[in-house]
C-alpha cells in the first residue's frame, strides 16, 4: 500500500489546487466587469436593458448612452437561446431596480441556430442564481455535478474566458469591428434560406419574460435587428414569427430588418459592425424605442 501513496497524493494535490484555483477564479468572476458578473454582483440602476443573441450585441452601448443620456445593460450573448435569455432577464429584474425599457431581439426565437448548450457555460454563475442552478441540474446534470466536484471545471467555458478577459475592463465595447468581405457580398445568392424554428415552449419562455418585466413596471420593446440588404430575400418566415409573437404577447414587434442599407455597415449577413450599430441605434431612437 505504501507504493500507492502517490495516487492519493496526486488526488489530494489536484483537489487542493482545484479548490485554490476555484477560489481565485470565483474572485475574478465576482470582480469582473463582464455583463453577467455585473448582473449578479451589482445592484446598479440602468434605464435600458437589452437581450438578444450575437445580433443583440449591435445595441452598441457607448453610442446609445452618449446619444440618449440613458444608462444601459446588455445581457446578449452569441447563440443565446430564449429560455436562457428569459432566465437572465428575470435574475436581473430580481436584483436591480426595474429598468425603464427592455429591448428584446426576437431572432433568439430559433432552436436551430441558437446554442442550446450555452447554459452549461454559465456554470460559474450557479453559486449566484438558484434559477441557473436548477436549469443546469435539470438539463446539464453531468456538467452541473462535475462543477461541484471540480471548481475549475465550473470555469471551463468560453463564457468564463470572457469573464476573465473583462476582469478589469468594461465589456460595453464588445461588437464586431470588421467589414463584410467582397466574396461574401458576391456569394449572397448561394446562401441557403434562413428559417426560424420556434416551438410553443420557446414562445412560452418569451411570454413569461415579457410578463415578468411588465409586472415590474418595465416597458418591453420587441424588435428585429437589421440584416444585410441583399440577404433579406433569404429570410424565410420572419413575418410569421413576428405575427405569432404579437398574437402571443399582445405587443407589436418593430421591424428594423432593412433599417441599415450601407454595405460597409455590416460585418457579415446577419451582424452590423460598429458603423452599422450607430446607424441602427439612430433609427431606434427616432422610433422612440430608446426613451
Amino acid at each position, binding site marked *: 500500500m505504501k507504493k500507492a501513496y502517490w495516487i492519493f497524493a496526486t488526488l489530494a*494535490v489536484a483537489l487542493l489546487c482545484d479548490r485554490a484555483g476555484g477560489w481565485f477564479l470565483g474572485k475574478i468572476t465576482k470582480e469582473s466587469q463582464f455583463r453577467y458578473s455585473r448582473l449578479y454582483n451589482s445592484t446598479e440602476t440602468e434605464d435600458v436593458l437589452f437581450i438578444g443573441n450575437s445580433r443583440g450585441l449591435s445595441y452598441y452601448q457607448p453610442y446609445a448612452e452618449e446619444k440618449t443620456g440613458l444608462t444601459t445593460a446588455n445581457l446578449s450573448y452569441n447563440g443565446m437561446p430564449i429560455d436562457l435569455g428569459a432566465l437572465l432577464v428575470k435574475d436581473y429584474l430580481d436584483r436591480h431596480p426595474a429598468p425603464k425599457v427592455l429591448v428584446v431581439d426576437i431572432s433568439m426565437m430559433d432552436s436551430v441556430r441558437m446554442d442550446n448548450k450555452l447554459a452549461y457555460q454559465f456554470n460559474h454563475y450557479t453559486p449566484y442564481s438558484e434559477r441557473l442552478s436548477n436549469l443546469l441540474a435539470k438539463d446539464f446534470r453531468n456538467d452541473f455535478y462535475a462543477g461541484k466536484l471540480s471548481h475549475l471545471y465550473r470555469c471551463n467555458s468560453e463564457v468564463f474566458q470572457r469573464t476573465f478577459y473583462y476582469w478589469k475592463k468594461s465589456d460595453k465595447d464588445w461588437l464586431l469591428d470588421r467589414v463584410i*468581405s467582397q*466574396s461574401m457580398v458576391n*456569394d449572397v445568392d448561394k446562401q441557403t434560406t434562413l428559417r426560424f424554428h420556434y416551438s410553443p415552449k420557446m414562445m412560452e419562455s418569451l411570454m413569461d419574460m415579457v410578463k415578468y418585466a411588465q409586472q415590474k413596471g418595465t416597458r418591453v420593446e420587441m424588435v428585429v435587428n437589421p440584416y444585410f440588404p441583399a440577404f433579406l430575400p433569404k429570410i424565410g418566415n420572419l413575418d410569421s414569427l413576428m405575427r405569432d409573437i404579437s398574437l402571443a404577447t399582445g405587443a407589436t414587434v418593430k421591424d428594423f430588418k432593412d433599417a441599415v442599407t450601407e454595405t460597409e455597415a455590416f460585418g457579415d449577413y446577419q451582424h452590423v459592425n460598429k458603423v452599422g450599430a450607430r446607424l441602427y441605434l439612430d433609427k431606434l431612437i427616432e422610433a422612440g424605442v430608446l426613451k
Partner: protein
Amino acid sequence: MIFNSLTFLAFIALFLPLYFSLKGNARLWLSLIGSYIFYGWWDWRFLSLIAISTLVDYYLGRSMEDVNDDKKRRKLLIISMVLNLGFLGFFKYFNFFTDSFVTLLQNFGMNPSVHTLRIILPVGISFYTFQSMSYTIDVYRKQIQAEKSLLRFSTFVAFWPQLVAGPIVRAADFLPQFHRDHEFNWDRIVSGTGRVLWGFFKKCVVADSLAPFVDQIFMEPNGFASVNLLIGVIFYSFQIYCDFSGYSDIAIGFARILGFDFNENFRTPYFSQNFSEFWSRWHISLSSWLRDYLYIPLGGNRNGKLATYKNNMLTMLLGGLWHGANWTFVFWGLLHGVYLIAQRQLGKPFGALMSGLRFPPALKTGVNIGLTYFFTCVAWVYFRSPNFENANDLFAGIAGMEGFSFVNVMSKFTVMKGVLLIGILLVVEVSNLRMHWSSLAFKNPNFRVAAYAILLLLLAFFGSFGSGAFIYFQF
C-alpha cells in the same frame, strides 16, 4: 464505448480490480468478455463480424501449420484474405465503388439503375481486419507459429485497448504476451497512468478544443476570411494529430497497466525533415504494416527506380483508401506518393542548394521541418474536406488573401485557447526530447505527483467531455 465517457469510467472501475484478481484462463475470459462489451456497447450486432473473422483466421492458421503442401497453404491464405478483405470491402467500400461505377457510366452517357445499400460502417473494422490478416500472413510465411488456444487468439483480436482505433498490433509482438500471467506491477501502473493522462490531455483538451473551429471552416469554406481558413488548416493538423495519437497514448497506457507492451504509434511527426521520416513517425503501426505486407511484397525498392516509384505510389494510394471510402482520401494518398517520389528525385539537388546557401544547421533543419509540415497540411486539406470542391474553395480562399488581418479572426477566444493549448503541447513534446518527462515521473515521485496533478487540473479547466468521438473510429 469511447474512452472519454462516463460509461468507460464505470467499465474500467469494474474491469481493473477483476482483472488483477484473476489469473490464467479466467483472466483471458474476462479480457475477452470485457472487450466484447467494450465493442458491443456501440452496436452489438457487429460483434458477429469480429467473431467470424476470429474463428476463420484461427482455424486457417491452425490448418496452415498442419499442412506442408505450399499450394494448399496458399489456398488457405487466400481464403483468409478473401474473407477479411470481403468484410472490409462490403462494409466500407461497397457503396463507394458502386457510386463511382455509376458516375463513370454516366460520364459515357449511360444511366444505369443501380441501388446502393444502407450499410453501417462497423467501428474499427480496418484496424482489427489488418491485425487479424497480419496473423495469417505471418503464419503462412512461417514467421510465427499458429496460436493453439482459441481463447487466447480471440482475446488477441478483440483486446479492448486497441480494438477500435489501433495501434495495429502484430501477432509476433503481441500474441506471446498472452502466454504470460501479468502480475500486478506498480511500476506499470505509474507509467501507464501517466501515458493515459497525457492521451486524455491530447484528445479532450487539445483536439476537442480545436474541433468546433475546424468543423466550421471545412463544412463551408466559402465566406470565411482567408486568415480563418489558414487557422482552420493549422488547427486541423493538430486536431488530427492529438485525436489519433491521444487515442494511441490511452491504448498504450491501459495496455501497460494490464501488463502488455505496444509499440509506439507516433513520434512527434511534425518535426520530420522529409516525408520518409514523416511516415516513420506518423501512424507507425499502419505504415510499417503497409511496408511489410504490401510495399516489400510488391518488390519495394529492389527493381530499379521506376518500379520503386510505382510501388511507393500504389502503397500510398491504398493507404489513402484504407482511411475511408472517398476519392479525397485516395487523393491524399496520391499526394503523399508524389511527395515521396519528389523527395527521391529532388532530395539531393535540394540538399546541395541548402549547403550552397551556407545556412546555419539549425536554420536548415527549420526549413526542412517547415516545408514538410507545409506540404503535409496541403494534403490534410483533402483528407478533411468532404469533397474536392470544398478543398479547392479553401485553397482559393487562402490564396485570395482577402481579409488577411487579425481583426477578421473569428471566434477569437476559441483561437486564443487553441494557440495556447498547441503551445503547451509543443513545449512538452519538444522538451520531452531532452528531458524525457515520463522517465522523470517514473524516477521522482514528487515530480510525478505534481505532473499528474497538473494534467488532471488541465483536463478539468480546459477539457471537452462527452461530445467528441475519436476521428479514427470512422476508419
